[in-house]
């Protein structure tokens, strides 16, 4: 029993560290990436050791100096604010996003001393519903954060944010139904395993092959859920100062920012799990590679597991970078355009996707 508890604790820790580190790393990718896109140098003022090193340690500035600065700044609570809800707002925003990672499988089974360890923190048989339910709760962080500060900008941002998140949640959920139909299960680990198969023995049977439209709908709705450009109406700094977290400072503001970045990682992790083969490496089975054409390469179990986890992290990173690329490439939507996209484009597309997928599955038997 103690061994089980220890394994569960280690798995949770691994996943939490993975999620948090990716979140913070994204901060640097975002700054340097935006600089790259806009032909600037970007965060570069951390030339520690007085230029002895041949390279610049700008990454240190973002990863260490910046968080320390943020979390030691003065915490200002505006005069008319509701102190309790002002305090809880950032937590309600970041907590549901972080617990979502519990259901995401980050590897296949690891065997240590005859004990099989499933590399997934929470083995839920309704994993997809869980990962839809949890991020949905982060809307309370937005709504309460905006309302509690008793500021007009914040309230407007909160109302925009909640309307946007609820609208796109529907498209997101319906976009995933196609994938559920294809794999025939709600269990994320089972979906990950199913993607290890190959079509005609050559193409890896990843979800995106079966559900390209589902992936597109999920990604667009996911980016809208993260409330970033081109869907950053709730923050909209040119209209609402900073939207629902206008009246937040120091560590609370940093927590809101963190929840946005954590949501990027969640969306990437879910897209990877459902559409890009989760932890699968093409042609890699538990005992090694089995390339098409009969060529096989036996590998020790530990190497296989390490490759699987690395593959998962790599895919998540690529999707994160893609989302940052989107953020710095597109202009902001107008609010009516945003609602039109959600309700008049994504929703009918998602419904059509469900219908077509269901018909094809029934016809294919």
């Amino acid at each position, binding site marked *: 029993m103690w061994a089980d508890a220890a394994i569960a604790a280690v798995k949770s820790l691994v996943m939490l560290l993975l999620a948090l580190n990716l979140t913070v790393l994204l901060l640097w990718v975002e700054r340097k990436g935006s600089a790259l896109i806009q032909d600037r140098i970007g965060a570069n003022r951390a030339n520690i050791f007085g230029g002895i090193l041949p390279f610049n340690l700008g990454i240190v500035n973002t990863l260490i100096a910046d968080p320390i600065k943020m979390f030691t700044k003065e915490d200002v609570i505006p005069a008319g604010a*509701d102190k309790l809800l002002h305090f809880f707002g950032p937590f309600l925003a970041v907590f549901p996003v972080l617990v979502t990672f519990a259901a995401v499988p980050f590897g296949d089974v690891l065997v240590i001393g005859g004990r099989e360890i499933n590399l997934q923190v929470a083995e839920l048989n*309704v994993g997809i*519903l869980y990962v*839809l339910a949890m991020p949905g*709760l982060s809307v309370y962080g937005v*709504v309460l954060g905006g309302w509690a500060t008793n500021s007009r900008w914040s309230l407007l941002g909160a*109302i925009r944010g909640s*309307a946007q998140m609820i609208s796109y949640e529907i498209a997101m*959920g319906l976009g995933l139904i196609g994938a559920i139909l294809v794999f025939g299960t*709600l269990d994320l680990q089972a979906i990950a395993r199913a993607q290890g198969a190959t079509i005609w023995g050559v193409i890896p049977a990843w979800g995106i092959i079966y559900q390209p439209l589902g992936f597109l709908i999920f990604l667009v709705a996911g980016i809208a859920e993260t409330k970033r450009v081109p869907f950053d109406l709730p923050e909209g700094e040119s209209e609402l100062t900073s939207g629902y977290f206008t009246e937040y400072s120091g560590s609370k503001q940093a927590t809101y920012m963190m929840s946005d970045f954590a949501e990027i990682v969640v969306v990437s992790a879910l897209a990877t799990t459902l559409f890009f083969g989760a932890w699968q490496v093409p042609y890699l089975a538990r005992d090694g590679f089995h390339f098409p054409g009969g060529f096989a390469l036996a590998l020790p179990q530990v190497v296989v597991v390490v490759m699987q986890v690395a593959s998962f992290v790599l895919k998540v990173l690529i999707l994160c970078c893609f989302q940052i690329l989107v953020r710095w490439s597109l202009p902001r939507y107008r609010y009516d355009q945003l609602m039109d996209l959600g309700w008049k484009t994504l929703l009918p597309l998602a419904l059509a996707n469900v219908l077509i997928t269901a018909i094809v599955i029934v016809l294919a038997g």
Partner: protein
Amino acid sequence: MGPVTFFLLATALVVSALTVVVHPNPVKSAMALVATLFLLAVEFVFLGAHMIAALQVIVYAGAIMVLFLFVIMLLNLSDEEAEARRRGRALFRIGAWIGGGVLAAELAALFLRVPFPAPAAPPAGYGGAESVATALFVDYALPFELTSILLLIAVIGTVVLAQRRAS
């Protein structure tokens, strides 16, 4: 689920449910209701009914309560207004206390007299995706479809009412 977990959860559940009723601030009341629904979902998880728990969070805590909160915020009912309204109804309060007291006494009598046998374990697959789907789409397919028509009528009715007021 062990008795310790159950009573911890149940206490939290009852406290948050009471907060919904007694808290003067409507926004905090609504948030307490969210907490209640969430804790109820946790109870379902402990019963092994993962599907129902997920639906509880998605539908009630995640969607319906957000709309509640939305309306409360837009009405912007402040603490003072709510307090003033409450103060003006002393007679109602006395009546409510008496009615509530009688109900509580009846419940207490019920709990003391009726024996509670240990509950049987839930059947296999209880509250899972398959059993919920079988109930909805096989056993009660007709009522389910009729309910969806009812909801559709309500949606159309809302649109018609909203349009009439706008013009």
